[in-house]
């Protein structure tokens, strides 16, 4: 099995603070991590290789420091990693990102032979769209199974998976090669091993830019992105909370009465 796992480096969201005055994000000192949902993709890819043999290649499009995320992926057990980095990619939306990642996968195929499986995370916690997985599939003209929660078996080029939907799960049989996006249930991510960490430190990452991928300039970065962000603003989430301090029995009774009064007033009970 030859598997490609596209991973994204994202800011650790729980550490993101807002500048109340300007309404912008304070990114200074915010740690960059592998998109937490991509860890499940890495894990299931490694498990499949352990069963079927082959190799797992992690790829990421991002700034040079995304190489840290790729090295972490190697420490977990990926065989190799490719950083796809170029100033021309700046400002890419999901259309332009999928285009670049698909081109990279095509090039891997040309250089090292066919890929059987591309496993993406369900979505990235920063962009939070979940569009890139299906986008890559569309560019490569492959089927895509989204929200995969279990991979049952792979035999004779057919892969049987469970796909989580609103009221249950579907059992799908897919011809390889295919793209999948996986959810948390698919596997629990392992921790990097000491040996993995040592390998990650030493390994030479392949780095590709626009020239390596023979991409059309007009389809890259902000110019190649159909969507534009035209405004960013802070939502007025703060409601006018009526707060009751309820530390003794009387205060608890009184507070509960106020809550019941509120529920009645709003016709909630």
């Amino acid at each position: 099995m030859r598997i490609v796992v596209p991973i994204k480096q994202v800011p650790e969201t729980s550490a993101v603070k807002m500048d109340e005055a300007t309404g912008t994000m304070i990114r200074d000192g915010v740690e960059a991590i592998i998109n937490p949902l991509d860890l499940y993709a890495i894990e299931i890819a490694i498990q499949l290789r352990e069963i079927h043999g082959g190799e797992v290649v992690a790829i990421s499009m991002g700034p040079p420091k995304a190489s840290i995320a790729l090295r972490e992926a190697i420490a977990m057990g990926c065989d190799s990693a490719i950083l796809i980095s170029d100033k021309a990619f700046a400002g890419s939306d999901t259309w332009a990102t999928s285009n670049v990642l698909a081109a990279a996968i095509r090039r891997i195929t040309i250089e090292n032979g066919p890929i059987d499986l591309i496993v993406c995370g369900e979505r990235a916690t920063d962009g939070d769209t979940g569009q890139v997985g299906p986008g890559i599939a569309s560019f490569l003209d492959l089927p895509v199974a989204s929200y995969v929660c279990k991979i049952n078996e792979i035999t004779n080029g057919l892969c049987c998976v469970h796909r989580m939907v609103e009221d249950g799960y579907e059992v799908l049989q897919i011809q390889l090669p295919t793209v999948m996006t996986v959810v948390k249930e698919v596997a629990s991510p392992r921790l990097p091993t000491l040996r993995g960490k040592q390998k990650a430190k030493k390994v030479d990452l392949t780095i590709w830019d626009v020239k390596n991928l023979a991409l059309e300039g007009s389809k890259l970065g902000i110019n190649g992105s159909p969507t534009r962000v035209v405004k960013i603003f802070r939502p007025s989430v703060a409601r006018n909370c009526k707060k009751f301090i309820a530390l003794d029995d009387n205060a608890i009774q009184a507070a509960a009465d106020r809550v019941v009064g509120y529920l009645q007033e709003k016709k909630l009970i």
Partner: protein
Amino acid sequence: MDYKGIWILAEQSAGRVQVISHELLTRGRDLAGKRQTELTAVIFGNNINNNDLQELIERGADRVLAMEAFALEHFLIEPYAACMLHLITQYRPEIIIAGATSTGRTLMPYVAIKATAGLTADCTVLDIEEGTGNLLQTRPAIGGNILATIKTPKCRPQMATVRPQSTQPAPRQAGRKGTVERLQAPSHLLVSRMQRINFVKNQEEHGLAHANAIVSVGRGIKKGENLKIIHPLIKALGAALGASREVIDRGWLSYSHQVGLSGKTVNPKLYVAVGISGSIQHLAGMQTSENIIAINSDPDAQIFRVADIGVAGNLFDIVPVLAEKIRQARMIS
């Protein structure tokens, strides 16, 4: 640009039109009014119920395009995408809105790539820009801490998904007129490298997504066994049970209960947060709830900032009293 008209992507299951379709008609009617253009509901399936298609007209569609084939009975990416692209090429809509469902979130990006269209996920507000007529798409960014407005100035169609339950279903107006076109899907579009061989319905169905009221518990509950003190409150309110990720990660409840950035987005009339601190990841999944009540022992907990009414104190003392009072109030009314 000769792209015209607004589309919504209606969804069916076993031939019956799903409620998300009616929610999308609310969005679509608003946009079609502002754009002074026609609203079309597009639907893929097999033997779709005729009354349900008529109902799409009564709820606001001017036209229904129902494309049918055996291979379209269930969502499969390749035939669905091929049929949708076929219709887009033929009718050239300027806007397509779909639900952010497991179908919409997969089909829309696949189609948007091939149509070179812009796509914005999980929009909370959709509007038309005066002058240009561009679709303005507003969505939460970075875990709901900021909102971003996005537009697609050059490419058509402009595509967007909206979260289920973020809009009321469009009301039914008996006798409203429109056309229903049933189209046979061309067979060369129905090739699929994927087959659906089974479907297993969820055993435990808490219906978080459709609940009118949700009571969610956080780490403040301290132990899985303590969940029993929440049950009278849930019962009194007729609520579904949600939870923060801390509760899931400790194995006190299964993942299907998780509310938040990496769990479910919910939008009930009433959300009661019990022993939840209010991290931005949790807020991202519930802050648009109509009414929010928080119970937390820390008077400065962030959850109070998004609550309408808050009780600062020990949940183990407060919840039983509150549950009993609600039960009594309901018996009287």
